[in-house]
């Protein structure tokens, strides 16, 4: 919190939404975060629309938690901007935090408090008044089915019930945005089903961003899915389209010395290439070429490049195609359940 909100009271204008999309609740632009020398997430861009349930799908270490910690104002990004309801998460952190309910991955709770006293504490931290807190505690205890445990010490609850307390505190103050980091990890299958339907209910009214490494789960709950891998968003679409898209596609990454404006159309004309994208990097032009599985375009592409007088600097089958990620993500479900 570098800037105290009071000091800028007279600077406070209506929140400015830069994007044309007035429906955007969260806008993430060129988000990059480093913990050490390697980026945990790099140049991530996405938008979450109001009322949408967005799924963040990716294997462990993909950068889901990092992104969520930035969305919720827990830590500032190394680079890039994130706005929530028009408020910048760094400059207007307090405004952002008022609007967000958050369930961190490890469900950290004050284990020595009872469920009710913990919820009361969290409600006060969120600036709620005594009457509203009492009212809402009754509501969330009902919604999260904690009736029998309201006076229980949190430390004595099972993992599944702690998860419910975690969700209860996240929705207590009726936030506009719910951020849930792996909300179904480590709880038993029946509770998983209950939690999923609870999230779907909440998603009727709130904007929900949830992360998971389980593909079927995300497909089931979410209206839109981002697949994140090694800090990059590798796909973003509805669950249906993704499944379609992923079927039978392979990918090649090439670096070519030559003017992109000329290279691109030539690559696109290569027989079998379904999609070619240009990824300029410092000092080099990289291209990603997708083609139907079963083909091998390497020979053809290298000849084309050379015959045009350009230089072929590198070529490799993509270290992990969407399909492989998809596979890895799907197999992870077997580990868990």
């Amino acid at each position, binding site marked *: *919190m*570098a800037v*105290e909100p009071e000091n800028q009271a007279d600077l406070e204008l209506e929140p400015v939404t830069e994007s044309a999309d007035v429906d955007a609740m969260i806008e993430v632009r060129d988000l990059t975060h480093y913990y050490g020398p390697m980026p945990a997430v790099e140049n991530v861009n996405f938008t979450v629309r109001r009322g949408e349930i967005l799924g963040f799908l990716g294997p462990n270490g993909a950068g889901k938690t990092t992104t969520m*910690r930035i969305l*919720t*104002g*827990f*830590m*500032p990004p190394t680079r890039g901007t994130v706005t929530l309801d028009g408020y910048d998460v760094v400059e207007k952190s*307090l405004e952002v*935090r*008022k609007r*967000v309910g*958050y369930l*961190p991955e*490890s469900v*950290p*709770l*004050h*284990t*020595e*408090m009872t469920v009710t*006293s913990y919820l009361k*504490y*969290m409600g*006060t*931290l*969120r*600036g709620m008044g005594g009457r509203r807190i009492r009212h809402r505690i009754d509501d969330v205890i009902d919604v999260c089915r904690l009736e029998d445990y309201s006076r229980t010490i949190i430390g004595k609850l099972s993992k599944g019930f702690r998860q419910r307390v975690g969700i209860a*505190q996240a929705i207590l103050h009726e936030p506009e945005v719910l951020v849930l980091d792996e909300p179904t990890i480590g709880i038993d299958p029946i509770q998983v089903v209950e939690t999923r339907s609870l999230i779907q209910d909440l998603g009727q009214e709130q904007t929900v961003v949830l992360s998971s490494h389980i593909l079927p789960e995300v497909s089931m709950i979410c209206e839109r899915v981002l697949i994140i891998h090694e800090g990059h968003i590798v796909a973003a679409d509805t669950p249906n389209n993704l499944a379609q898209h992923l079927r039978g596609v392979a990918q090649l990454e090439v670096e070519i010395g030559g003017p992109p404006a000329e290279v691109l159309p030539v690559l696109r004309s290569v027989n079998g290439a379904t999609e070619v994208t240009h990824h300029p990097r410092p000092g080099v032009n990289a291209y990603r070429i997708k083609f139907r599985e079963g083909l091998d375009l390497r020979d053809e592409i290298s000849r084309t490049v050379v015959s045009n007088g350009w230089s072929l600097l590198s070529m490799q089958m993509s270290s992990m195609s969407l399909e492989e990620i998809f596979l890895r993500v799907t197999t992870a479900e077997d580990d868990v359940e």
Partner: protein
Amino acid sequence: MRTIRAVAFKEIQIYFSSPVAYIVALIFMALSGFFFVRDLGNPFPEASLSNFFQGATFLLIPLAPALTMRLLAEEQKLGTIELLLTSPVRDWEVILGKYLASFVFLLFLLALTSYYVILLVAFATPDPGPIYSGYIGLILYGMAALAVGILTSTLTSNQIIAAVVGTGILVVLYATSFIGDVVTGVWATIFNQLGFTSHFNDFDRGIIDSTHIVYFVTVIALFLFLSIRALESRRWR
């Protein structure tokens, strides 16, 4: 204000329901009681709390960090800090709330020692002046010690490290005045002015000097300010 109260209230509840705080209270009462009665066996014992006050400043060196070690270190260890810092609470409200809770527990400890005052008044006729001023000095001294403990608890997620480093800083601040007694000239003044002890001793003698109050308030403000900055920078790690 409401959030400061919420943070403080939660910690006070935990203080009064946790064994650690009661152990600290027990140790404090047992040992300060020892200091209180130490000279009573003399032929002409002095009807004052001076021995107790001197002993208490010594006891607070390990005990104040023991009281504060949990306050921020545990939140970092358990990850609950993630929910605390993503709530619409300002960093200084977190620090002040935690500090307030430890202060309330300090007041509770000192309230227990009113037992010594009662004994003294029952069996002798002490001069009330040094008792009042001594308590004022002890409260200021204790608050400064707690502020040091808050800082070390903010800097680490390990409670033991927080307590040990906090005690180390307090030992230095306590011993500095004694160095001032050994060296001469301008160094003597500097060391004397920097340390806790020389500022506390006037309170013990019944003197309430505003420079000593300013000293302790400055130390408290400095360490709380550093704690707030440390908590802020915690977001950048």
